[in-house]
Protein backbone atom coordinates (compact mmCIF):
# COMPACT_ATOMS: atom_id res chain seq x y z
CA UNK A 1 0.00 0.00 0.00
CA UNK A 2 1.17 3.51 -0.86
CA UNK A 3 2.16 5.75 2.05
CA UNK A 4 -0.45 8.40 1.24
CA UNK A 5 -3.98 7.48 0.13
CA UNK A 6 -6.33 10.24 -0.95
CA UNK A 7 -10.02 9.39 -0.98
CA UNK A 8 -12.11 11.51 -3.36
CA UNK A 9 -15.52 11.11 -4.99
CA UNK A 10 -19.08 12.41 -5.24
CA UNK A 11 -20.69 13.54 -2.00
CA UNK A 12 -22.62 10.69 -0.46
CA UNK A 13 -20.50 8.07 -2.21
CA UNK A 14 -19.26 6.81 1.15
CA UNK A 15 -15.78 8.36 1.16
CA UNK A 16 -15.71 9.01 4.88
CA UNK A 17 -16.87 5.53 5.92
CA UNK A 18 -14.38 4.03 3.48
CA UNK A 19 -11.57 6.24 4.81
CA UNK A 20 -12.38 5.36 8.43
CA UNK A 21 -12.47 1.63 7.68
CA UNK A 22 -9.26 1.84 5.65
CA UNK A 23 -7.50 3.68 8.48
CA UNK A 24 -8.62 1.18 11.12
CA UNK A 25 -7.47 -1.69 8.92
CA UNK A 26 -4.01 -0.19 8.58
CA UNK A 27 -3.45 0.13 12.30
CA UNK A 28 -1.96 -3.31 12.74
CA UNK A 29 0.86 -2.38 10.35
CA UNK A 30 4.28 -1.29 11.52
CA UNK A 31 3.88 2.47 10.86
CA UNK A 32 1.69 5.05 12.61
CA UNK A 33 -1.56 5.95 10.85
CA UNK A 34 -3.15 9.39 10.48
CA UNK A 35 -6.56 10.28 9.06
CA UNK A 36 -6.74 13.77 7.58
CA UNK A 37 -10.32 14.94 7.30
CA UNK A 38 -10.16 17.71 4.70
CA UNK A 39 -13.94 17.85 4.18
CA UNK A 40 -14.95 21.49 4.34
CA UNK A 41 -18.13 20.95 2.33
CA UNK A 42 -20.33 18.64 4.36
CA UNK A 43 -21.66 19.98 7.65
CA UNK A 44 -22.69 16.56 9.05
CA UNK A 45 -21.36 12.99 8.83
CA UNK A 46 -17.68 13.89 8.77
CA UNK A 47 -15.02 11.32 9.59
CA UNK A 48 -13.64 13.53 12.39
CA UNK A 49 -16.90 12.95 14.29
CA UNK A 50 -15.37 9.53 15.01
CA UNK A 51 -12.23 11.03 16.52
CA UNK A 52 -12.70 9.25 19.83
CA UNK A 53 -13.07 5.79 18.27
CA UNK A 54 -10.19 6.38 15.86
CA UNK A 55 -7.82 7.71 18.51
CA UNK A 56 -8.72 4.85 20.82
CA UNK A 57 -7.54 2.61 17.99
CA UNK A 58 -4.29 4.55 17.53
CA UNK A 59 -5.34 6.51 14.45
CA UNK A 60 -4.37 10.16 14.71
CA UNK A 61 -7.18 12.43 13.47
CA UNK A 62 -6.60 15.88 12.00
CA UNK A 63 -9.51 18.10 11.05
CA UNK A 64 -10.00 21.83 11.41
CA UNK A 65 -8.23 24.06 13.89
CA UNK A 66 -10.95 24.83 16.34
CA UNK A 67 -11.37 21.64 18.30
CA UNK A 68 -15.15 21.99 17.99
CA UNK A 69 -15.21 20.31 14.61
CA UNK A 70 -18.77 19.08 14.64
CA UNK A 71 -20.51 22.41 14.97
CA UNK A 72 -18.20 24.59 12.94
CA UNK A 73 -18.68 25.10 9.22
CA UNK A 74 -15.70 27.39 8.68
CA UNK A 75 -13.65 26.22 5.71
CA UNK A 76 -10.40 25.95 7.65
CA UNK A 77 -7.88 23.14 7.98
CA UNK A 78 -5.20 22.73 10.58
CA UNK A 79 -1.58 23.21 9.45
CA UNK A 80 -1.00 20.00 11.41
CA UNK A 81 -2.15 18.24 8.26
CA UNK A 82 1.29 18.81 6.71
CA UNK A 83 2.93 16.63 9.38
CA UNK A 84 1.80 13.14 8.37
CA UNK A 85 2.10 14.02 4.67
CA UNK A 86 5.78 14.94 5.06
CA UNK A 87 6.75 12.26 7.57
CA UNK A 88 8.08 9.29 5.57
CA UNK A 89 7.33 6.89 8.45
CA UNK A 90 3.57 7.65 8.68
CA UNK A 91 0.69 6.24 6.68
CA UNK A 92 -1.69 9.07 5.83
CA UNK A 93 -5.24 8.75 4.60
CA UNK A 94 -6.90 11.89 3.31
CA UNK A 95 -10.69 12.06 3.39
CA UNK A 96 -11.39 14.82 0.87
CA UNK A 97 -14.66 16.71 0.62
CA UNK A 98 -17.21 15.63 -1.96
CA UNK A 99 -17.24 16.56 -5.62
CA UNK A 100 -14.74 18.77 -7.46
CA UNK A 101 -15.50 21.61 -5.04
CA UNK A 102 -14.45 19.46 -2.07
CA UNK A 103 -11.33 18.26 -3.89
CA UNK A 104 -10.16 21.83 -4.42
CA UNK A 105 -8.58 21.83 -0.94
CA UNK A 106 -6.16 19.11 -2.06
CA UNK A 107 -4.44 21.63 -4.30
CA UNK A 108 -2.86 23.36 -1.30
CA UNK A 109 -1.16 20.11 -0.23
CA UNK A 110 -0.05 19.04 -3.71
CA UNK A 111 3.51 20.28 -3.27
CA UNK A 112 4.15 18.08 -0.21
CA UNK A 113 2.61 14.84 -1.49
CA UNK A 114 5.11 12.03 -2.13
CA UNK A 115 4.68 11.67 -5.91
CA UNK A 116 5.77 8.05 -6.21
CA UNK A 117 4.10 6.94 -3.01
CA UNK A 118 0.63 8.44 -3.30
CA UNK A 119 -2.64 6.84 -4.38
CA UNK A 120 -5.56 9.04 -5.44
CA UNK A 121 -8.77 7.05 -5.22
CA UNK A 122 -12.15 7.90 -6.67
CA UNK A 123 -14.98 6.28 -4.72
CA UNK A 124 -17.87 5.11 -6.92
CA UNK A 125 -21.40 4.60 -5.65
CA UNK A 126 -23.64 3.64 -8.57
CA UNK A 127 -26.73 3.95 -6.33
CA UNK A 128 -26.37 7.74 -6.28
CA UNK A 129 -28.38 9.43 -9.03
CA UNK A 130 -25.44 11.63 -10.09
CA UNK A 131 -22.95 8.78 -10.54
CA UNK A 132 -24.79 6.02 -12.38
CA UNK A 133 -23.35 6.30 -15.87
CA UNK A 134 -19.93 6.38 -17.47
CA UNK A 135 -20.66 9.91 -18.75
CA UNK A 136 -21.46 11.17 -15.25
CA UNK A 137 -18.32 9.50 -13.86
CA UNK A 138 -16.11 10.95 -16.59
CA UNK A 139 -17.41 14.41 -15.75
CA UNK A 140 -16.86 13.86 -12.02
CA UNK A 141 -13.33 12.50 -12.42
CA UNK A 142 -12.23 15.25 -14.78
CA UNK A 143 -13.76 17.82 -12.40
CA UNK A 144 -11.92 16.38 -9.39
CA UNK A 145 -8.66 16.24 -11.35
CA UNK A 146 -9.14 19.79 -12.60
CA UNK A 147 -9.84 21.27 -9.16
CA UNK A 148 -7.20 19.33 -7.22
CA UNK A 149 -4.44 19.28 -9.83
CA UNK A 150 -4.01 15.56 -9.09
CA UNK A 151 -4.56 12.53 -11.33
CA UNK A 152 -6.93 9.82 -10.10
CA UNK A 153 -4.90 6.60 -9.91
CA UNK A 154 -7.51 4.04 -8.91
CA UNK A 155 -11.19 3.27 -8.37
CA UNK A 156 -13.13 2.07 -5.34
CA UNK A 157 -16.39 0.25 -5.97
CA UNK A 158 -18.30 1.40 -2.93
CA UNK A 159 -21.78 0.97 -4.37
CA UNK A 160 -24.27 0.67 -1.54
CA UNK A 161 -27.76 1.42 -0.22
CA UNK A 162 -26.57 1.76 3.38
CA UNK A 163 -27.91 -1.10 5.51
CA UNK A 164 -30.26 -2.06 2.66
CA UNK A 165 -27.34 -3.01 0.37
CA UNK A 166 -27.47 -6.32 -1.46
CA UNK A 167 -24.99 -7.95 -3.83
CA UNK A 168 -27.18 -6.56 -6.64
CA UNK A 169 -25.91 -3.04 -5.95
CA UNK A 170 -22.32 -4.22 -5.65
CA UNK A 171 -22.53 -6.04 -8.98
CA UNK A 172 -23.99 -2.98 -10.66
CA UNK A 173 -21.22 -0.88 -9.17
CA UNK A 174 -18.63 -3.35 -10.36
CA UNK A 175 -20.00 -3.17 -13.91
CA UNK A 176 -19.81 0.62 -13.83
CA UNK A 177 -16.28 0.53 -12.40
CA UNK A 178 -15.23 -1.89 -15.13
CA UNK A 179 -16.53 0.51 -17.78
CA UNK A 180 -14.69 3.44 -16.19
CA UNK A 181 -11.61 1.28 -15.76
CA UNK A 182 -11.53 0.42 -19.47
CA UNK A 183 -12.39 3.91 -20.71
CA UNK A 184 -9.95 5.79 -18.48
CA UNK A 185 -7.34 3.04 -17.98
CA UNK A 186 -7.71 3.12 -14.21
CA UNK A 187 -7.37 0.01 -12.03
CA UNK A 188 -10.16 -1.06 -9.65
CA UNK A 189 -8.19 -1.15 -6.40
CA UNK A 190 -10.83 -1.72 -3.72
CA UNK A 191 -14.39 -2.83 -3.09
CA UNK A 192 -16.04 -1.35 -0.02
CA UNK A 193 -18.37 -4.13 1.10
CA UNK A 194 -20.64 -4.34 4.14
CA UNK A 195 -19.24 -6.91 6.53
CA UNK A 196 -22.38 -9.02 6.19
CA UNK A 197 -21.97 -9.30 2.39
CA UNK A 198 -18.27 -10.14 2.16
CA UNK A 199 -18.89 -13.89 1.89
CA UNK A 200 -21.42 -13.50 -0.92
CA UNK A 201 -19.14 -11.82 -3.46
CA UNK A 202 -17.43 -13.68 -6.29
CA UNK A 203 -13.75 -14.28 -5.63
CA UNK A 204 -12.51 -13.27 -9.06
CA UNK A 205 -13.02 -9.49 -8.93
CA UNK A 206 -9.82 -7.50 -9.34
CA UNK A 207 -8.97 -5.38 -6.29
CA UNK A 208 -9.04 -5.83 -2.55
CA UNK A 209 -12.18 -6.24 -0.42
CA UNK A 210 -12.46 -3.77 2.43
CA UNK A 211 -15.16 -4.93 4.85
CA UNK A 212 -17.17 -1.89 5.89
CA UNK A 213 -18.60 -1.25 9.33
CA UNK A 214 -20.89 1.79 9.29
CA UNK A 215 -19.38 4.01 11.97
CA UNK A 216 -21.18 7.21 10.93
CA UNK A 217 -24.65 5.68 10.98
CA UNK A 218 -26.53 5.88 14.28
CA UNK A 219 -28.61 2.90 15.40
CA UNK A 220 -31.90 4.83 15.08
CA UNK A 221 -31.25 5.52 11.41
CA UNK A 222 -31.81 1.85 10.60
CA UNK A 223 -35.53 2.11 11.39
CA UNK A 224 -37.99 4.43 9.72
Amino acid at each position, binding site marked *: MKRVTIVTGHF*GSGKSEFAINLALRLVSAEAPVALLDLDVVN*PYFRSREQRELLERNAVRVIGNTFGKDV*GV*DVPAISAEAYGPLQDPSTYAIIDAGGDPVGARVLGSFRHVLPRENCEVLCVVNAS*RPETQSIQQMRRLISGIEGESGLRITGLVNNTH*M*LEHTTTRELRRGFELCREISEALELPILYHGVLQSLVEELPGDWPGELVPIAMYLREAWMHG*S
Partner: protein
Amino acid sequence: MDKVLMKGNEALCAAAIRGGCQFFFGYPITPQNEIPEYMSRELGRAGGTFLQAESEVAAINMVYGAAGAGARVMTSSSSPGIALKQEGISYICGAELPCVIVNISRGGPGLGGIQPSQADYFQATRGGGNGDYYLLVFAPANIQEAADLMIEAFDLADLYRMPVMILGDGMLGQMMEPVVFKERKPRDLPQKDWATTGTAGKRKPNIINSLRLDPAELENLNIRLQEKYAQLKANEVRYETHQTEDAELVFVAYGTSSRIVKNAVAVMRANGLKAGLIRPITLWPFPEQAFEELPDSLRALMSVELSHGQMIDDVKIAARGRWPVGFYGRSGGMIFTQQEIVEAGEKLLREVSHVSGV
Protein backbone atom coordinates in the same frame (compact mmCIF):
# COMPACT_ATOMS: atom_id res chain seq x y z
CA MET B 1 -37.33 5.21 -11.70
CA ASP B 2 -35.27 2.74 -9.68
CA LYS B 3 -34.49 3.04 -6.04
CA VAL B 4 -31.67 5.56 -5.53
CA LEU B 5 -29.66 6.69 -2.54
CA MET B 6 -30.22 10.35 -1.72
CA LYS B 7 -29.65 12.98 0.91
CA GLY B 8 -32.88 14.38 2.34
CA ASN B 9 -32.18 17.79 0.84
CA GLU B 10 -31.65 16.31 -2.62
CA ALA B 11 -34.75 14.12 -2.42
CA LEU B 12 -36.90 17.14 -1.50
CA CYS B 13 -35.67 18.88 -4.66
CA ALA B 14 -36.15 15.89 -6.95
CA ALA B 15 -39.68 15.54 -5.56
CA ALA B 16 -40.39 19.26 -5.93
CA ILE B 17 -39.47 19.12 -9.62
CA ARG B 18 -41.71 16.06 -10.04
CA GLY B 19 -44.41 18.00 -8.19
CA GLY B 20 -44.30 20.66 -10.88
CA CYS B 21 -42.18 23.30 -9.15
CA GLN B 22 -41.42 26.01 -11.71
CA PHE B 23 -39.57 28.61 -9.63
CA PHE B 24 -37.15 28.49 -6.73
CA PHE B 25 -36.05 31.61 -4.88
CA GLY B 26 -33.70 31.30 -1.95
CA TYR B 27 -30.56 32.26 -0.14
CA PRO B 28 -27.93 29.82 1.17
CA ILE B 29 -27.74 28.66 4.78
CA THR B 30 -26.47 25.47 6.43
CA PRO B 31 -27.80 22.75 6.79
CA GLN B 32 -30.04 23.13 3.72
CA ASN B 33 -27.48 24.25 1.13
CA GLU B 34 -27.87 21.15 -1.00
CA ILE B 35 -31.38 22.42 -1.83
CA PRO B 36 -30.39 25.62 -3.65
CA GLU B 37 -27.34 23.80 -5.03
CA TYR B 38 -29.50 21.05 -6.53
CA MET B 39 -32.15 23.46 -7.76
CA SER B 40 -29.55 25.74 -9.37
CA ARG B 41 -28.35 22.75 -11.36
CA GLU B 42 -31.58 20.88 -12.10
CA LEU B 43 -34.53 23.27 -12.12
CA GLY B 44 -33.40 25.03 -15.30
CA ARG B 45 -32.98 21.67 -17.04
CA ALA B 46 -36.57 20.84 -16.08
CA GLY B 47 -37.80 24.06 -17.68
CA GLY B 48 -38.04 26.13 -14.49
CA THR B 49 -36.05 29.02 -13.06
CA PHE B 50 -33.68 29.09 -10.11
CA LEU B 51 -32.76 32.45 -8.70
CA GLN B 52 -30.50 33.17 -5.76
CA ALA B 53 -31.96 36.26 -4.16
CA GLU B 54 -29.91 38.90 -2.36
CA SER B 55 -31.54 37.96 0.95
CA GLU B 56 -34.20 35.78 2.53
CA VAL B 57 -36.55 38.77 2.58
CA ALA B 58 -36.12 39.26 -1.16
CA ALA B 59 -36.58 35.53 -1.78
CA ILE B 60 -39.93 35.27 0.01
CA ASN B 61 -41.22 38.36 -1.79
CA MET B 62 -40.21 36.81 -5.12
CA VAL B 63 -42.23 33.80 -4.03
CA TYR B 64 -45.18 36.16 -3.42
CA GLY B 65 -44.82 37.54 -6.94
CA ALA B 66 -44.48 34.23 -8.74
CA ALA B 67 -47.33 32.67 -6.74
CA GLY B 68 -49.50 35.67 -7.54
CA ALA B 69 -48.85 35.04 -11.22
CA GLY B 70 -50.10 31.48 -10.75
CA ALA B 71 -46.77 29.60 -10.83
CA ARG B 72 -45.77 26.65 -8.66
CA VAL B 73 -43.05 28.15 -6.52
CA MET B 74 -40.96 27.28 -3.49
CA THR B 75 -38.30 28.62 -1.19
CA SER B 76 -36.19 26.93 1.44
CA SER B 77 -34.01 28.01 4.31
CA SER B 78 -33.03 27.08 7.85
CA SER B 79 -34.29 28.47 11.14
CA PRO B 80 -32.92 32.05 11.29
CA GLY B 81 -33.49 32.38 7.55
CA ILE B 82 -37.12 31.31 7.99
CA ALA B 83 -37.41 33.91 10.76
CA LEU B 84 -36.43 36.55 8.20
CA LYS B 85 -39.16 35.36 5.85
CA GLN B 86 -42.02 35.74 8.31
CA GLU B 87 -43.30 39.08 7.08
CA GLY B 88 -43.52 37.72 3.54
CA ILE B 89 -45.24 34.56 4.74
CA SER B 90 -47.91 36.61 6.51
CA TYR B 91 -48.43 38.66 3.31
CA ILE B 92 -48.71 35.45 1.26
CA CYS B 93 -51.40 34.21 3.66
CA GLY B 94 -53.16 37.56 3.50
CA ALA B 95 -53.17 37.42 -0.30
CA GLU B 96 -54.20 33.73 -0.22
CA LEU B 97 -51.34 32.52 -2.39
CA PRO B 98 -50.10 28.94 -2.74
CA CYS B 99 -46.41 28.13 -2.25
CA VAL B 100 -44.13 25.62 -0.55
CA ILE B 101 -41.64 26.61 2.14
CA VAL B 102 -38.97 24.22 3.40
CA ASN B 103 -37.33 24.69 6.80
CA ILE B 104 -34.40 22.36 7.48
CA SER B 105 -34.03 23.55 11.02
CA ARG B 106 -30.98 24.06 13.20
CA GLY B 107 -30.36 25.04 16.81
CA GLY B 108 -31.39 28.51 18.04
CA PRO B 109 -32.22 31.09 19.23
CA GLY B 110 -30.48 33.69 17.10
CA LEU B 111 -27.94 32.41 14.62
CA GLY B 112 -27.62 29.39 16.90
CA GLY B 113 -25.63 26.52 15.42
CA ILE B 114 -25.70 24.27 12.39
CA GLN B 115 -26.63 20.98 14.04
CA PRO B 116 -30.18 19.55 14.00
CA SER B 117 -32.92 20.93 16.21
CA GLN B 118 -36.71 21.02 16.49
CA ALA B 119 -36.97 24.39 18.18
CA ASP B 120 -38.95 25.97 15.32
CA TYR B 121 -42.22 24.23 16.22
CA PHE B 122 -43.76 27.44 17.55
CA GLN B 123 -42.46 29.42 14.58
CA ALA B 124 -44.07 26.94 12.18
CA THR B 125 -47.37 26.26 13.93
CA ARG B 126 -48.15 29.51 15.77
CA GLY B 127 -47.50 31.98 12.96
CA GLY B 128 -44.17 33.79 13.10
CA GLY B 129 -45.74 36.77 11.37
CA ASN B 130 -48.73 38.97 12.16
CA GLY B 131 -52.40 38.18 11.86
CA ASP B 132 -54.75 35.23 12.24
CA TYR B 133 -53.12 32.71 9.94
CA TYR B 134 -51.74 29.20 9.86
CA LEU B 135 -49.61 27.15 7.53
CA LEU B 136 -50.20 23.51 6.73
CA VAL B 137 -47.06 22.03 8.29
CA PHE B 138 -45.71 18.61 7.33
CA ALA B 139 -43.03 16.93 9.45
CA PRO B 140 -41.60 13.92 7.60
CA ALA B 141 -39.61 11.35 9.59
CA ASN B 142 -37.70 9.72 6.75
CA ILE B 143 -36.53 10.64 3.30
CA GLN B 144 -39.12 8.64 1.39
CA GLU B 145 -41.85 10.36 3.35
CA ALA B 146 -40.20 13.75 2.78
CA ALA B 147 -40.25 13.15 -0.98
CA ASP B 148 -43.87 11.95 -0.97
CA LEU B 149 -45.04 14.88 1.16
CA MET B 150 -43.19 17.39 -1.00
CA ILE B 151 -45.23 16.38 -4.04
CA GLU B 152 -48.43 16.51 -1.95
CA ALA B 153 -47.41 19.93 -0.64
CA PHE B 154 -47.66 21.59 -4.06
CA ASP B 155 -51.11 20.11 -4.69
CA LEU B 156 -52.46 21.06 -1.28
CA ALA B 157 -51.03 24.58 -1.52
CA ASP B 158 -52.95 25.04 -4.79
CA LEU B 159 -56.08 23.36 -3.44
CA TYR B 160 -56.30 25.58 -0.34
CA ARG B 161 -54.51 28.63 -1.77
CA MET B 162 -52.10 28.80 1.15
CA PRO B 163 -48.46 28.11 1.98
CA VAL B 164 -47.47 24.58 2.94
CA MET B 165 -44.36 24.16 5.05
CA ILE B 166 -42.12 21.10 5.15
CA LEU B 167 -40.36 21.16 8.51
CA GLY B 168 -37.44 18.77 8.85
CA ASP B 169 -34.53 19.08 11.21
CA GLY B 170 -30.99 19.27 9.87
CA MET B 171 -30.53 15.54 10.28
CA LEU B 172 -33.37 14.80 7.85
CA GLY B 173 -31.79 17.18 5.35
CA GLN B 174 -28.30 15.75 5.67
CA MET B 175 -28.81 12.02 6.15
CA MET B 176 -29.07 9.59 3.27
CA GLU B 177 -31.64 6.88 2.61
CA PRO B 178 -32.97 4.94 -0.38
CA VAL B 179 -35.85 6.67 -2.18
CA VAL B 180 -38.25 5.62 -4.91
CA PHE B 181 -40.14 8.24 -6.88
CA LYS B 182 -43.50 6.71 -7.68
CA GLU B 183 -45.69 7.75 -10.57
CA ARG B 184 -48.96 9.14 -9.30
CA LYS B 185 -52.21 10.44 -10.68
CA PRO B 186 -52.47 14.21 -10.71
CA ARG B 187 -55.21 15.64 -8.53
CA ASP B 188 -58.11 17.63 -9.92
CA LEU B 189 -57.27 21.15 -8.90
CA PRO B 190 -59.25 24.36 -9.36
CA GLN B 191 -58.21 26.76 -12.13
CA LYS B 192 -56.14 29.69 -10.91
CA ASP B 193 -58.62 32.23 -12.25
CA TRP B 194 -57.46 34.68 -9.57
CA ALA B 195 -53.87 34.86 -10.85
CA THR B 196 -52.34 37.92 -12.51
CA THR B 197 -51.73 36.34 -15.88
CA GLY B 198 -52.74 39.25 -18.12
CA THR B 199 -56.26 40.29 -19.03
CA ALA B 200 -55.82 40.19 -22.82
CA GLY B 201 -58.30 43.11 -22.67
CA LYS B 202 -61.11 40.67 -21.92
CA ARG B 203 -61.62 40.92 -18.16
CA LYS B 204 -61.03 43.20 -15.21
CA PRO B 205 -57.48 42.93 -13.84
CA ASN B 206 -56.92 40.45 -11.00
CA ILE B 207 -55.26 42.10 -8.02
CA ILE B 208 -52.97 40.33 -5.56
CA ASN B 209 -52.94 42.27 -2.33
CA SER B 210 -52.86 41.81 1.44
CA LEU B 211 -53.91 45.37 2.31
CA ARG B 212 -57.62 45.71 3.11
CA LEU B 213 -58.43 49.08 4.65
CA ASP B 214 -62.15 48.37 4.88
CA PRO B 215 -62.55 46.55 8.22
CA ALA B 216 -65.62 44.63 7.08
CA GLU B 217 -63.74 43.35 4.03
CA LEU B 218 -60.75 42.39 6.18
CA GLU B 219 -62.99 40.55 8.62
CA ASN B 220 -64.53 38.69 5.69
CA LEU B 221 -61.09 37.55 4.59
CA ASN B 222 -60.39 36.31 8.11
CA ILE B 223 -63.69 34.44 8.25
CA ARG B 224 -62.85 32.83 4.89
CA LEU B 225 -59.40 31.84 6.19
CA GLN B 226 -60.95 30.29 9.29
CA GLU B 227 -63.33 28.26 7.12
CA LYS B 228 -60.34 27.04 5.16
CA TYR B 229 -58.54 26.07 8.38
CA ALA B 230 -61.63 24.18 9.54
CA GLN B 231 -61.55 22.21 6.27
CA LEU B 232 -57.88 21.42 6.81
CA LYS B 233 -58.64 20.15 10.32
CA ALA B 234 -61.36 17.94 8.90
CA ASN B 235 -59.50 16.61 5.86
CA GLU B 236 -55.74 16.94 6.05
CA VAL B 237 -54.66 15.77 9.50
CA ARG B 238 -52.05 13.02 9.30
CA TYR B 239 -50.40 10.96 11.98
CA GLU B 240 -49.00 7.52 12.74
CA THR B 241 -49.66 5.52 15.88
CA HIS B 242 -47.21 2.83 16.93
CA GLN B 243 -48.05 0.22 19.58
CA THR B 244 -50.53 2.44 21.40
CA GLU B 245 -53.32 -0.19 21.66
CA ASP B 246 -52.38 -1.49 25.12
CA ALA B 247 -49.93 1.21 26.18
CA GLU B 248 -49.37 2.55 29.70
CA LEU B 249 -47.08 5.28 28.41
CA VAL B 250 -47.45 6.98 25.03
CA PHE B 251 -44.65 9.17 23.71
CA VAL B 252 -45.46 11.96 21.26
CA ALA B 253 -42.61 12.74 18.87
CA TYR B 254 -42.16 13.86 15.26
CA GLY B 255 -39.43 13.81 12.62
CA THR B 256 -36.00 12.54 13.62
CA SER B 257 -37.02 12.31 17.30
CA SER B 258 -39.81 9.88 16.50
CA ARG B 259 -37.32 7.39 15.08
CA ILE B 260 -35.20 7.40 18.20
CA VAL B 261 -38.37 7.10 20.30
CA LYS B 262 -39.50 4.10 18.25
CA ASN B 263 -36.28 2.33 19.22
CA ALA B 264 -36.86 3.32 22.85
CA VAL B 265 -40.40 1.87 22.66
CA ALA B 266 -38.94 -1.45 21.48
CA VAL B 267 -36.43 -1.49 24.35
CA MET B 268 -39.13 -0.67 26.92
CA ARG B 269 -41.45 -3.36 25.57
CA ALA B 270 -38.58 -5.87 25.75
CA ASN B 271 -38.24 -4.84 29.42
CA GLY B 272 -41.95 -5.53 29.98
CA LEU B 273 -43.08 -1.90 29.96
CA LYS B 274 -45.93 -1.13 27.60
CA ALA B 275 -44.88 1.97 25.68
CA GLY B 276 -46.23 3.40 22.43
CA LEU B 277 -45.87 6.39 20.14
CA ILE B 278 -48.06 8.99 18.47
CA ARG B 279 -46.17 10.56 15.57
CA PRO B 280 -47.79 13.73 14.20
CA ILE B 281 -47.11 14.02 10.45
CA THR B 282 -49.02 17.29 10.23
CA LEU B 283 -47.86 19.58 13.05
CA TRP B 284 -50.58 22.02 12.07
CA PRO B 285 -53.33 20.90 12.12
CA PHE B 286 -52.17 18.94 15.17
CA PRO B 287 -53.61 15.41 15.23
CA GLU B 288 -55.86 15.77 18.27
CA GLN B 289 -57.95 12.82 17.03
CA ALA B 290 -55.05 10.46 17.79
CA PHE B 291 -55.54 11.15 21.49
CA GLU B 292 -59.21 10.17 21.36
CA GLU B 293 -58.25 6.63 20.38
CA LEU B 294 -55.91 5.99 23.31
CA PRO B 295 -56.66 2.98 25.53
CA ASP B 296 -57.90 2.93 29.16
CA SER B 297 -54.56 1.38 30.14
CA LEU B 298 -52.82 4.73 29.50
CA ARG B 299 -51.24 6.33 32.57
CA ALA B 300 -49.13 9.12 31.08
CA LEU B 301 -48.07 10.94 27.94
CA MET B 302 -44.58 12.24 27.24
CA SER B 303 -43.62 14.78 24.61
CA VAL B 304 -40.11 14.15 23.27
CA GLU B 305 -38.53 16.94 21.24
CA LEU B 306 -35.17 18.28 20.14
CA SER B 307 -36.05 21.48 22.00
CA HIS B 308 -36.98 22.43 25.54
CA GLY B 309 -40.67 21.82 24.98
CA GLN B 310 -42.87 23.42 22.33
CA MET B 311 -45.10 20.68 20.92
CA ILE B 312 -45.87 19.77 24.55
CA ASP B 313 -48.39 22.64 24.55
CA ASP B 314 -50.38 20.93 21.79
CA VAL B 315 -50.05 17.59 23.56
CA LYS B 316 -51.54 19.16 26.70
CA ILE B 317 -54.39 20.70 24.71
CA ALA B 318 -55.11 17.32 23.11
CA ALA B 319 -54.83 15.51 26.48
CA ARG B 320 -57.46 17.85 28.00
CA GLY B 321 -56.23 17.08 31.49
CA ARG B 322 -57.02 13.37 31.19
CA TRP B 323 -53.42 12.20 31.64
CA PRO B 324 -50.25 13.70 33.11
CA VAL B 325 -47.94 15.00 30.37
CA GLY B 326 -44.19 14.62 30.86
CA PHE B 327 -41.36 15.94 28.74
CA TYR B 328 -37.90 15.01 27.59
CA GLY B 329 -35.75 17.06 25.23
CA ARG B 330 -32.25 18.09 24.20
CA SER B 331 -31.32 21.23 22.33
CA GLY B 332 -28.63 23.18 20.54
CA GLY B 333 -27.87 20.33 18.14
CA MET B 334 -27.48 17.66 20.82
CA ILE B 335 -29.43 14.50 20.01
CA PHE B 336 -30.76 12.19 22.70
CA THR B 337 -30.01 8.48 22.70
CA GLN B 338 -32.75 5.87 22.95
CA GLN B 339 -31.41 5.03 26.41
CA GLU B 340 -32.03 8.57 27.64
CA ILE B 341 -35.64 8.29 26.48
CA VAL B 342 -36.11 4.88 28.07
CA GLU B 343 -34.86 6.27 31.39
CA ALA B 344 -37.02 9.41 31.13
CA GLY B 345 -40.08 7.28 30.35
CA GLU B 346 -39.44 4.92 33.26
CA LYS B 347 -38.92 7.86 35.61
CA LEU B 348 -42.22 9.45 34.55
CA LEU B 349 -44.12 6.22 35.15
CA ARG B 350 -42.58 5.91 38.63
CA GLU B 351 -43.63 9.47 39.45
CA VAL B 352 -47.16 8.87 38.18
CA SER B 353 -47.45 5.71 40.31
CA HIS B 354 -46.26 7.64 43.34
CA VAL B 355 -48.82 10.42 42.89
CA SER B 356 -51.73 8.06 42.36
CA GLY B 357 -50.58 5.94 45.31
CA VAL B 358 -50.25 2.75 43.26
